[in-house]
């Protein structure tokens, strides 16, 4: 029993990093309907921002803030340099896909130059080293912190989207840029804000995962992008609570497929599950997307 419960803990803590990352993805892919392949690179960038901040001796919450803002700035830059430019010139959305893919590659290359290709770790701290044994189940302080952070971020984001004027602006732009313009929503600024939020969430997720598994490397974003896309399809495009639930679900599915089947089948089971869900519910598990857009 304790082995089973331990696996649940493992799945939830892995899932919470997926959830934070997927929230950013769902904003860009789902709400704005922009295909941004650099989202994984923001994740990697955030991990390095957080790492450098932690190495300068900043306490963990401040380092997380640095990672979040750093990721956000990367998101803003991507919008200004690539997506806005393409939009103004009437570029096709496939161009955005390729351009953002190129941006991601460039960022990986730059990170390689600055930080080297080797994996780095966060400095040891009480946050990393504190853990409790409860009935044979090991729970780390860090796992609890990451879970709380992911839930807080989800609540903040959901509130922002539903209640604030920024949120209303984002939803209006998502519905139609033309309509947004007619009703006086500053479209450019709203998209910029969304990119900041999405980049920030990716950056925060990068620092959380980097801490949890002690792995910061220029290549860490590549796999993550696929996970993020998986989760937002699972949870329903544009649905923030859906992205969070999807993140936890994917984390649990991965852990349990490794635990009870084999590591070789982990991705096959993860993606197989998506096929199944999409067959039964083509709009994702929790989607209210069509109504939301309407």
């Amino acid at each position, binding site marked *: 029993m304790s082995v089973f419960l331990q*696996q649940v803990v*493992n799945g939830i803590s892995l899932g919470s990093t997926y959830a934070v990352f997927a929230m950013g993805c769902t904003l860009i892919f789902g709400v704005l309907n922009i295909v941004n392949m650099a989202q994984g690179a923001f994740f990697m960038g955030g991990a390095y921002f957080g790492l450098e901040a932690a190495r300068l001796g900043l306490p963990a919450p401040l380092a997380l803030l640095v990672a979040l803002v750093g990721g956000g700035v990367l998101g803003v830059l991507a919008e200004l340099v690539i997506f806005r430019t393409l939009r103004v010139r009437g570029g096709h959305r496939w161009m955005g896909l390729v351009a953002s893919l190129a941006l991601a590659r460039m960022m990986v290359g730059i990170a390689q130059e600055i930080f080297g290709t080797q*994996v780095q770790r966060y400095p040891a701290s009480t946050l990393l080293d504190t853990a409790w044994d409860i009935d044979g189940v*090991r729970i780390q302080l860090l796992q609890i912190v990451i879970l709380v952070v992911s839930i807080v971020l989800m609540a903040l984001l959901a509130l922002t989207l539903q209640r604030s004027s920024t949120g209303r602006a984002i939803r209006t732009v998502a519905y139609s840029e033309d309509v947004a313009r007619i009703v006086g929503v500053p479209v450019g600024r709203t998209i910029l804000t969304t990119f900041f939020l999405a980049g920030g969430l990716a950056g925060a997720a990068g620092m959380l995962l980097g801490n949890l598994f*002690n792995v910061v490397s220029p290549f860490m974003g590549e796999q993550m992008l696929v996970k993020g896309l998986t989760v937002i399809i699972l949870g329903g495009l544009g649905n923030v609570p859906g992205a969070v639930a999807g993140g936890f679900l994917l984390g649990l599915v991965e852990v349990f497929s490794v635990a009870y089947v084999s*590591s070789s089948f982990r991705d096959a089971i993860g993606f197989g599950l998506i096929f199944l869900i999409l067959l039964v519910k083509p709009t994702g598990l929790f989607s209210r997307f069509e109504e939301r857009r309407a």
Partner: protein
Amino acid sequence: MKYVALSACVALAVASITPAAAADEQIKVGIVQATSGGSAALYGTMGKNAALLAIDEINGSGMLGASKLVPIYEDDAGDRGQAVNIFQRLIFQEKVSVIFGPTLATSAFAADPIAQKAQVLVIANSNTAPGITAMGDFIFRTSPPEAGVFPGVLRYAKKKFNLKTAAQIYGIDDTLMKTAYGVHKKALEDEGIKIVDTETFQKGDVDYSAQLTKIKGANPDAIVIGGLAEESANIVRQARQLGIPQSVPIMGAVASISTKMAELGGAAAEGYLVGSTWYMSYDAARNKSFVEAYRKRYNSDPDSFAAQGYTAVYAFADAVKRAGGVGDVKKLRDAVAATKNLDSPMGPFSFDTDREPVIDPKVLAVKDGKFTPVTNE
């Protein structure tokens, strides 16, 4: 005038007798290492740095007379397709005499046959999978296969920790790690240690908690990891975080020896056991000069892959000297194969008849963040 003509005549005669020993010969040597592309870059960077250091030392010392080694370095990023392309270019366009590398065994299995067919020497410094040198008589390595060192580590651990059971975890999608797993399994069976759980992971994985939770549930006396340095470091760390006590020793593959292993593993890596050919404080004059030169040039510590890469270049240069140049390929190959008791940072170094390295194996444990020989404890 007469004198000039005579000396020209002599020079011509000498040149025609030993064309290979032509003065100021430029000997092109290829270095193929992965210096980007994740975990492999750890070893590739070491191999590349050490090879360049050795080449400059050899050129500076006049060991080869007026001949010079001209390094051509290429990064294969740990990708076997890229390794194949690079080998083709180095062999057919650059016409190198030897290739040092490639970093990964998977790349070696794809690219080495090209060199073998073209009769170009390959001396690997980090391939530890079985069957590397079996690809042909031009393929050598200075890195010992897992089977050369692991049984010694296990015997030591069995005696010290009174092991009855063990769990294994290994990278299932990596040739090197799969074979390391096979070697570990056989060694465990030979020692009569019961394997209570076997887990796998894949390249690029960062979360091993699911596998380690199962291992913890099986309650083994020891854990054996078939993984590279970064993976092994994280497995060790996550194992301890999950509450597998420090009293359960963790043993690793030769390939996991890296200063990075101890650094990434942190306190959790203390006591981690491996077998090796080399360690930093190995007491030999040749090793001291190597470590000092490496530190001076790169401002960081070498590891065993650096020592093996350094030895590979010296073994080649020594053979060039004995063969009187690189002109006669067959003679050069035979000279490399005849390497015997070469003074290396790992101690006396020889190749056996299978072109495998002959070096004294050493059992190392991480102590205060450094790989330290257990006998010195």
